[in-house]
């Protein structure tokens, strides 16, 4: 295919990419502002930064990898679809997690099941019974996964945000619409609820 390389090298050499130009690390917010201006390619670096954390977040919430992958994909679709609603300077991480929460809520409402099916979680997660060498660890992980699945969704979410996604209480408060102090109390209550289930 001769045409594309020729075109690319022409444009890059002559106008687009002088070799002296250094690529600076671009903030999430700057990238999103460009996506908003219909420069959709700038979503690619944001995808690279966020798809794993968002997938992991959704996995912890749903306990289902396949569903989580679909939901995470949907989050990026919504970033494009609702890009006009992003405000310049708004913290991007909070914004995209809010979209993820909405995607999860929508999914949950469509597939209404008050608590996840424990057997299903065990099988969809990677804790096969064949992994005998790690039997102790996987039993423990499975028990903890099960305990998490038995928490009410809002408590599970706050634990996941705090424990796995690295959100501090102020950020959680922003996401949930409460103060940092209130978020901290909620997180502690969720931890206590989890402790009771896990050690029951």
């Amino acid at each position: 295919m001769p045409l594309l390389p020729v075109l690319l090298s022409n444009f890059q050499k002559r106008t687009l990419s002088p070799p002296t130009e250094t690529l600076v690390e671009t903030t999430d917010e700057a990238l999103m502002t460009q996506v908003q201006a219909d420069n959709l390619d700038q979503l690619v670096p944001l995808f690279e930064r966020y798809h794993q954390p968002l997938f992991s977040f959704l996995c912890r919430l749903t306990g289902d990898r396949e569903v989580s992958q679909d939901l995470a994909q949907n989050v990026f679709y919504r970033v494009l679809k609702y890009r006009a609603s992003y405000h310049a300077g708004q913290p991007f991480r909070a914004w995209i997690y809010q979209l993820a929460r909405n995607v999860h809520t929508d999914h949950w409402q469509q597939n209404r099941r008050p608590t996840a099916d424990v057997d299903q979680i065990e099988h969809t997660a990677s804790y096969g019974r064949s992994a005998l060498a790690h039997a102790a660890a996987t039993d423990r992980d499975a028990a903890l996964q099960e305990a998490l699945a038995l928490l009410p969704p809002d408590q599970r979410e706050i634990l996941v945000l705090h424990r796995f996604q690295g959100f501090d209480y102020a950020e959680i408060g922003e996401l949930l619409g409460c103060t940092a102090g209130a978020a901290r109390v909620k997180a502690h209550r969720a931890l206590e609820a989890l402790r009771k289930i896990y050690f029951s």
Partner: protein
Amino acid sequence: MHTSFTSHDLPASCAALEDLLPAYAEGELAPAEVAQVEAHLATCAACQEKVAQYQTLAQDLLGLPLACPTPEMRTDFMAMLHREKAALTTENVAPIANAEPRVEHEAKVILMWSRPATRQWLQVAASILLVAVGVVLGLVLHPGSEQLAANQTRKPSLATQLATAATQPATASDRIQLVSNAPTTNQQNDATVLVLVNTLNTDPNPNVRLAACEALYRLRKDPRVAPALVHSLPLQTDPNVQITLIELLVALRTPEAVPQLERLAQRRDALPAVRQQAEQGIGLLI
């Protein structure tokens, strides 16, 4: 809900500290509160056990395996991005041509063209141009493309089709498809170049004009192309078309464009990015 887990059968001294224990286990308490909790822990086995459980729980949570998405996630994402870009380029009308071969080419192109933030307009232009390139490539590389070309010879000429499209309510994507199907070689007196130039100068849709730019670039060996691009420059007001034209004139090494570029660089109604691009183009051509 807020008091759901408060156990009412705890001794009063334990109940008083109950809410502090998770924070204590997490190391979040101020020194005064730490002292208060530790004074109680020294005398209470039940609360000691609770603290130990919080700590075990925290460790086990940390030890939970991290699931990774499969590679399909990136593939699906790229396909989705491609669809959205195509929709944007064709103003939400149906996709231009059969998408199969294009997805792959453009997925590669996207990665190669990630750009620093300062050249936003350029990127917009480049991505739109590349959609056009992708369309052309999709047609060129598609196994059925020879047959497609063969079919075309039996159809009315491009000139006729475009002229018809201009007088009928043809969609922008129809016109892009027509323009993108323009042959890569032509005879000296072929009307294709003239039709494409006319499209470039008069089509109301900037994406159709961009596709015309691209089609003309493929016909760059024709001596009429470069002067027509120079002539078109002052007629354009869309920044993407302006920038693309400047790129093409530089790529074609057309020093005749310098006076027009100088005028464009002074134009008050042109975007700063366009004026900058014009100046850069002058620097490369003189």
